[in-house]
């Protein structure tokens, strides 16, 4: 069991009447790539700033490597931050920027020189010491900011949407590089982002935040396959959610009845802990479309509907299927079996949607929205 590097106990931050962070408890393990994911205003940046020492919590305790740092100023914490807009010192060369932390700690000049060279090599900017921040590109500035933080060998590196200002292609490239660097240096990373794909690509674990607290904390796959709340189901990818009533068990599965009477199944364990109304969820790509006459194995969930819309987007086709009660289901089908446009399902055709009960998930149903998330594929 890896030891705990950062521990937040009941951490609350209020700005006037606004509760930015609401009694968060969090444990980040040594050496892990941990992400705080959520929409703007969810409290993720405030949480990061409290760990960095730029905000003091209204209430609660923050521990770094077992030491209470709640009231320590930033310069006395063994953490470093990569800021959203890099915050490179414009009047200093890149070499001086990177050496800034070491100089403040009175490290010897020849050691500084050696470590600056190493840091530049780590971020693949060897030979850039004497340039000024105004003379480099956004991607390079981002890497300098990373080197400037990592050179101090902090216990934890905090990253506040560091890739937000880069274009898509560079962002993807940097995601891979960040992960490589993190594995190379073995430092705990706490990464704040609103980009679910970014978080999923790099993180060991993700806390999905909403309105000042996190709704679920898990690895990327678990968050995607087994979201525990409506918000998580919608924030990570696209989900179809249908209000259902529990109707006993069949073998290892719970039987869930849809408003129109159709029965669907989900793993029985997923019903644990649910007391109020629930919704059944299924991801669009887990659903297969069949003709009503087609043979469907008994192990599948079945749901009838009519195709209302079909959008061909190359790698897959996105269908909107309408149920009898006019609820709409999004289905992504890989363009394998039906490869050309002429063979696709056409609007108006009757179809049967099938998926394995194991691909279902169950969330508490307190709202009325059938489909959450943005039905778009990049």
């Amino acid at each position, binding site marked *: 069991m890896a030891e705990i590097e950062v521990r937040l106990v009941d951490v609350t931050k209020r700005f006037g009447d606004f509760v930015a962070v609401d009694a968060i408890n969090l444990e980040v393990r040594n050496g892990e790539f941990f992400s705080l994911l959520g929409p703007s205003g969810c409290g993720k940046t405030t949480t990061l700033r409290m760990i960095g020492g730029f905000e003091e919590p209204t209430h609660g305790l923050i521990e770094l490597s077992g030491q209470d740092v709640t009231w320590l100023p930033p310069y006395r914490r063994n953490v470093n931050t990569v800021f959203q807009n890099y915050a490179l*010192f414009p009047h200093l060369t890149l070499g001086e920027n990177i050496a800034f932390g070491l100089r403040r700690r009175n490290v010897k000049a020849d050691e500084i020189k050696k470590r600056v060279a190493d840091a530049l090599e780590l971020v693949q900017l060897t030979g850039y010491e004497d340039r000024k921040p105004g003379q480099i590109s956004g991607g390079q500035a981002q890497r300098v900011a990373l080197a400037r933080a990592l050179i101090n060998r902090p216990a934890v590196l905090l990253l506040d949407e560091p890739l937000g200002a880069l274009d898509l292609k560079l962002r993807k490239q940097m995601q891979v590089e960040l992960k490589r660097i993190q594995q190379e240096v073995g430092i705990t990373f706490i990464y704040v982002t609103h980009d679910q794909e970014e978080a999923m690509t790099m993180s060991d674990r993700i806390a999905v935040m909403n309105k000042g607290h996190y709704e679920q904390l898990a690895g990327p796959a678990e968050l995607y396959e087994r979201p525990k709340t409506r918000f998580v189901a919608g924030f990570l990818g696209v989900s179809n959610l249908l209000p259902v009533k529990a109707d006993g068990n069949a073998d290892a599965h719970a039987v869930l009845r849809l408003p129109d009477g159709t029965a669907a199944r989900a793993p029985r364990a997923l019903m644990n802990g649910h007391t109020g109304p629930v919704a059944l969820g299924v991801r669009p790509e887990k659903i297969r479309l069949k003709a009503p006459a087609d043979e469907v194995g008994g192990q599948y969930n079945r749901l009838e509907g009519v195709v209302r819309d079909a959008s061909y987007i190359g790698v897959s086709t996105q269908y909107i299927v309408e149920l009898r009660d006019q609820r709409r289901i999004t289905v992504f089908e890989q363009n394998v079996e039906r490869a050309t446009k002429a063979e696709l399902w056409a609007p108006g055709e009757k179809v049967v949607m099938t998926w394995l009960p194991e691909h279902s998930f169950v969330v508490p149903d307190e709202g009325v929205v059938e489909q959450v998330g943005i039905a778009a594929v990049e």
Partner: protein
Amino acid sequence: MGTFLKHHRWITPLALLAPGLLWLLVFYLYPALQMFMASFWSGSLATGFTFSLSNWTNYPDAVSTYAPIYLRSVLYAGAATVTTFLIAYPLAYTIAFKGGRFKNLLLFLVVAPFFTSFLLRTVSWKIILSDSGPVLGPLKAIGILPQQFHVLASPMAVIAGITYAFLPFMTLPIYVALEKVDFRLVEAAKDLYAGPWRPGGAIVGAIVGGVLMAVLGFVFNTSPLAFAIVGAVVGAVLFHFRVSESFVRVTFPLSISGVFAGGLLTFIPAIGDYVNAELLGGPNTSMIGNVIQAKFLTENDYPSASALSFVMMFGVLIVVAIYAKILGTEELSAAAARA
């Protein structure tokens, strides 16, 4: 017309520059040339002036006669620039970073004195600082100050007057520079272990506090040493606890351009100023501006006055060049960070 302008792109910038150039030509270059000619004159208003290049001796004559006054002018203007800076920087810093919603009001207060005439304000200071005025009068009455104590007609009065007069010229450029400093850079510095300024803060604070209080001691004719020690201790404590390394390494270097501009806007007019020396000073505190003014308007000695003016102009140019060499480049800020 449109295509004509398109083919002659040099016209637009020239047209925009023309009014300014014309103004400078008529009201600056022509009088300056005229004055330069006058500095080679000899004779007097009664006998008439004659031009001769052999009259270049006007220059060495002017310099040798008034060298001490030139020196005094540089000293007074320099001292006033330093004190203006010491007052203006904390003022601008407070408005820029702690002003909040009062920022505009505070800035207005900085320039508010301009609503009254420069001359009137200086005369008011004369009244305030007079030997039995509202400040010194009561202090003398209760025996804190000796009866013969006076502020007017002392170097201190002149320097204080100049400091007061040019404070807004120093404050505004520094404010503009500080306002542009991204607060996230300060956070980044703190993140990179920039804490209290140790040990530099205590040392610099002791020097600043010591010098300021020693000067005050001189002015009040008491023991400068005792004053200096108190000032050094207070300055050291204050700077040690209140000045952070993030300020020294980041905020201050990034505001250098404002300090440079403010310094120029204060020093150049201050060195030629004669109103403060005239109204607040005495016979032993006259500056080169007073001499030039007297030569031109009272004695009608145009050749000497012109020569003196040109010497001053070149002097200022040299001082400014040195100053720009020190402050105007990025070297200083970079050096501060390397230290």
